[in-house]
């Protein structure tokens, strides 16, 4: 790589020839504030917050798009630069609601932080009235408030370039410019997967998860209700981060303790039902493989992905595993098996789940998710919302003593916990499928072939003397490319895992912000550490799962399992 040498704030910096001033500065540990810039998205140069003085330029330049040059002299902290930055932020704030104290994004808002960093004490300008926009709360997952939008365009870019969904665009012109869906329809009326990546990159409170914490408090405070909670695999490596700990911290035991402090009657683990999903999905795969079923079979536990295929590739729905996601399987088992076992009227159970995901809220709300006669899952909150509840309750999370999940839906294997990362569902399935097909207890559990962070990965494995070709994709854009291949017959795989979000659930739309590749990697390592530390590495070895089948469900793909644990998909027209 050709390098150039430049000077930033008197410091000599080497940077690749094609890099920007911002990249060169950050690599040298020099901080330049940004708003529209996002390290994982194409730079836009829209907000002008990152302006610097650069030799050879007539005026201040936007460092996020301005390329470095040999011998360039850059100053990031001069009176002129500071005055320009303050002006940019003052003008943004002139049109921004001043309701920080009661804003859902307060504390995580990048605009708020920058205004504080710049020491703005007075906003000299008052903006003209911006066209009033109603708040879009048309769907179970995401809420948009246009008043808080600063037109940075990150949501447009992540939805277009990473997810390929193209839900948003800039509309209108000049002062009337807004970020808009087609025809300014609500998100619930356009082809949106509810993955929440827009909320994850939004620097302000303009796109946030729908906050359902009040519903959870109400349920907990209702003496007639038995409130149970399940926690998704990836929450245990992210909730600590939300509460001020290092990214990737494994806080399973503290999380369980915190949930009990909040007042949940039973604290269960979605890892348990991830293992259950592997039993059903694994046996479904073997059945398809041996009996000429539709292949490649594609995983169905990522609801953003399921929304996408129902919206864009309805002709491929037969490829989806009919197994419900772990969240929904948990709910179905909780209001039947657990209710029976504990002698509780299922009508009194409020089933709450803590998920890394905004699309899970929409999944739980699907009308068909009530095979037991009751809603599988009543309330879904994201990792961020759980963080909010723990803070509201004044729980000193870092210093909590570790506690154990309740039984009988609280034991999960290493296979269950890696569901939270890209490749994890595939790896978990392979562990069980290989044992079932060989009839042995194979020592091989680490399928390094399917691990990694590349958006599309594939491997050919030998399982029980048979060659099995598999693929793993994450992000919806990569999933679309894979679906095109399935359509034109060039995807000669037997099994494909798809997760909607970058990195899988660890990078989910409901996870702590900000997030980047490094943070996702740390969360993922946390999950693999949990897997390695677990004596049980295979779903079919989970004693609670064995007990469940033995005493209640019968066999995988059996009649009871079919009615409770499997679902069907249908085209969505939005």
């Amino acid at each position: 790589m050709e390098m150039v040498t430049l000077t930033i704030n008197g410091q000599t910096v080497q940077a690749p020839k094609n890099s920007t001033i911002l990249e060169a500065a950050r690599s040298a540990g020099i901080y330049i504030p940004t708003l529209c810039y996002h390290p994982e998205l194409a730079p836009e140069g829209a907000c002008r917050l990152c302006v610097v003085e650069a030799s050879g330029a007539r005026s201040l330049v936007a460092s996020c798009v301005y390329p470095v040059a040999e011998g360039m002299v850059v100053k990031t902290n001069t009176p002129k630069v500071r005055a320009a930055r303050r002006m940019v932020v003052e003008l943004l704030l002139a049109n921004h609601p001043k309701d920080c104290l009661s804003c859902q994004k307060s504390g995580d808002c990048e605009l708020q932080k920058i205004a504080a960093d710049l020491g703005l004490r007075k906003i000299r300008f008052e903006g003209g009235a911006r066209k009033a926009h109603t708040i879009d709360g048309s769907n179970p997952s995401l809420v948009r408030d246009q008043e808080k939008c600063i037109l940075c365009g990150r949501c447009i870019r992540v939805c277009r370039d990473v997810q390929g969904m193209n839900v948003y665009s800039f509309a209108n012109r000049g002062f009337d410019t807004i970020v808009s869906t087609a025809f300014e329809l609500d998100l619930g009326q356009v082809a949106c997967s509810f993955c929440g990546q827009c909320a994850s990159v939004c620097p302000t409170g303009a796109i946030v998860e729908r906050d359902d914490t009040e519903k959870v408090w109400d349920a907990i405070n209702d003496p007639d209700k038995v409130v149970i909670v399940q926690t998704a695999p990836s929450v245990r490596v992210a909730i600590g981060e939300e509460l001020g700990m290092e990214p990737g911290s494994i806080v399973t035991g503290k999380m369980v303790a915190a949930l009990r402090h909040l007042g949940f009657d039973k604290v269960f683990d979605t890892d348990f039902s991830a293992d259950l999903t592997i039993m059903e999905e694994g046996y479904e795969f073997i059945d398809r493989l041996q009996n000429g079923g539709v292949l490649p079979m594609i995983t169905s536990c990522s609801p953003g992905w399921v929304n996408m295929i129902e919206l864009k590739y309805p002709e491929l729905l037969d490829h989806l595993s009919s197994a419900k996601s772990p969240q929904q399987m948990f709910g179905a088992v909780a209001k039947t098996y657990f209710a029976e076992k504990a002698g509780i009227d299922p009508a009194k159970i409020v089933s709450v789940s803590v998920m890394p995901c905004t699309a899970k809220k929409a999944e739980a709300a699907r009308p068909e998710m009530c095979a037991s006669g009751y809603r599988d899952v009543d309330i879904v909150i994201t990792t961020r919302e759980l963080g909010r509840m723990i803070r509201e309750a004044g729980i000193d999370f870092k210093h909590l003593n570790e506690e154990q999940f309740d039984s009988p839906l609280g034991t999960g294997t290493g296979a269950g916990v890696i569901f939270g990362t890209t490749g994890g569902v595939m790896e978990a399935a392979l562990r069980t499928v290989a044992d079932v097909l060989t009839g042995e207890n194979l020592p091989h559990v680490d399928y390094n072939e399917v691990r990694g962070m590349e958006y599309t990965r594939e491997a050919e494995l030998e399982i029980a003397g048979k060659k099995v070709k598999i693929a793993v994709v994450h992000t919806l854009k990569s999933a679309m490319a894979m679906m095109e291949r399935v359509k034109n017959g060039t995807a000669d795989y037997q099994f494909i895992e798809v997760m909607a979000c970058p990195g899988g659930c660890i990078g989910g739309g409901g996870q702590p912000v900000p997030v980047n590749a490094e943070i996702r990697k740390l969360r993922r390592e946390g999950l693999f550490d949990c897997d390695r530390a677990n004596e049980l590495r295979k779903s079919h070895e989970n004693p609670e799962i064995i007990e469940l089948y033995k005493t209640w469900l019968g066999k995988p793909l059996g009649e009871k399992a079919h009615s409770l644990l499997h679902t069907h998909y249908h085209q969505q027209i939005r």
Partner: protein
Amino acid sequence: MSFVERTCSCCGGENPEKARIDAILAKYAGVKGALIPILQEVQSLYNYLPKDALEYVAKQTGTPISQIYGVVTFYSQFHLNPRGRNIIRVCQGTACHVRGGKNILLALEKELGIKAGHTTDDLRFTLETVACIGACGLAPVMQVNEDTHGRLTPDKLPGILAKYQ
């Protein structure tokens, strides 16, 4: 019912409008940057851009509908609502402003029962404002279709409008 599925109301066959849009799309097939000319030609079919026509263009060209909406709302030449048979452009430029252009606009709004930027229910008139039409000597002025009417007073308006059906 989507645009493509809609059948001809007289013969029950394929929507003839679809064939007209297909002809436009065929003309620009494979041409990069053709969205704006396509939209212009589709608009010339209807005088505005119906939602389902845009959805059809999006589908056929593989352009995201959100992006098409962005383009259509950016340029003032594109219209998302039906336009009247007669387009009134009332000048609000400097010269017209000082000679009472605002009163002309208000009188037109009252006469037609619509605000600027809107179309009467019977699709007879669309009322728009412009910044200058280069006829300052005749201020205050308005154009109806291609005709320019100058030295306007509110009481002259009903007589002028009556000429346009």
